[in-house]
């Protein structure tokens, strides 16, 4: 049995949540939260935490040297740095439009990296 302490980020109150996990890493109990959003945040955070990844990609022939990009949906937290390495290797050609896919299916996650501005 393991315990994990979290601060909930679902709203500004920031409840201190304690999650109990069994030896298989499954959630046994969630305490300290004051609403349902807190519980689902805590479960997600303890089993498979995910984060949006926002960064930039080199552009050739554009108005600026880089264009901002994001992951189309959150990526597993432990893959953030590996994704950065992939993204930093690519260069795209202008013109780029908002929503253009600059890198498909990054690290076989099924998640695309898309442009968030024009270039």
């Amino acid at each position, binding site marked *: 049995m393991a315990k994990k302490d979290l601060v909930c980020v679902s709203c500004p109150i920031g409840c201190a949540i304690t999650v109990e996990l069994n030896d298989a890493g499954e959630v046994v109990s969630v305490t300290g939260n004051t609403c349902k959003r807190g519980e689902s945040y805590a479960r997600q955070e303890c089993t498979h935490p995910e984060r949006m990844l926002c*960064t930039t990609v080199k552009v050739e022939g554009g108005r600026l040297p880089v264009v901002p990009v*994001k992951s189309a949906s959150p990526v597993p937290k432990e893959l953030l740095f590996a994704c950065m390495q992939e993204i930093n290797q690519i260069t795209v050609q202008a013109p780029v439009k908002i929503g253009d896919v600059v890198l498909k299916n990054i690290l076989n996650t099924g998640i695309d990296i898309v442009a*968030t*501005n024009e270039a």
Partner: protein
Amino acid sequence: MLHYDLVVVGGGPAGMAAALQAHEEGIEKILILERADTLGGILEQCIHTGFGLHYFGEELSGPEYAGRFIEKVYNTDIDVKVDTMVLDISADNVVTAVNNFDGLLIIQAKAIVLAMGCRERPRGALSIAGSRAAGIMTAGTAQKYVNIDGYMPGKTVVILGSGDIGLIMARRMTLEGAKVKAVCELMPYSGGLTRNIVQCLEDFGIPLRLSCTVVETHGKERLEGVTVANVDEHLQPIPGTEEYIPCDTLMLSVGLIPENELSKNAGIALDPVTGGPVVDEYRETSHKGVFACGNVLQVHDLVDFVTEESQLAGVGAAKSIRGSKPDSDTVQTKGENGVRYVVPQKIHRDTDADVKLYFRVGRVFENVTLCVTCGDEVIFSRKKRKMTPGEMEYVTLKTDTLQKLPAGSTLTVHIKEA
């Protein structure tokens, strides 16, 4: 001389929303003047997501949020001049501006919206000992270097101030391979959102040192390190707690100041607490026909609220141009017992819509009652579990309540502790 119904100073989220709203209200000749080379303002460099949850109901990056308004502006007949600097606003609403294409521009406006945004508090505003070595910059400047210009301003970083821009830059620098050694915060609590503390610092094991500040910078040509020290309850450094941290970059995230040089020159009355103009419920300043909205009026946490406020200013400007804006005497608003300020500062007694009073508290409050009173009468009261200085709050007052207020009265927003 050029003639416009409405001139908007600033093409960021505030200026665009005000211009678009006035356009929707049927105002025909509108001009946006923008200093930078594109519309969008500071959102262009805020590449992280979290914008638009309230207004669009989805989570967008800064450029995406701005992009939706830019597209709308260019799909109307609103005129836009970028690379254009406004120099002066006269008593009779003549705007003087300059750019490389038109030279000097003299524009007579029926109404003006001020939407110049805010600036970061710079190093000069803090008393930190040390020389002017390279590598000391505001977090927003660093953000522009990384996200717009595409280069890294340093490899080892200390951040002073735990405002959201500082936290966001801690994550951004870390993702790009820099080592962020610490975020120091003078106050005993962070000024940033909990979400950013968790996802920008804790995720990467970056220490947040509360009640701690930078007392000295070291290095002559390039920053070599900083000395940090803990502070006492009077925010003074405690001797003996100094610690040297080697770093080549110091980023400052120590507050934002509304950019009101133009407003001051025009003689517009400013609120000493917000640093922005004193306004009525439609965000009209002390200067007839001149409105203010967005961060030039009060520093917001969320761009969604900037958009909402600016649409209100757009409606106000349209009413002012048509001569249909409420113009009776006004009641004043003020903050007391923990409430630092209230916007708007005055409300017309013949106002024609519900009014939201926006305010901030001066410290963290838990389990308190938020009250709005007029003399002895309690107009609004609600229990609040938690209120923090980092979160702007509002209460909505109904039109008929406002219309019944006695002449010359004051609405007071205050916190009642148990």
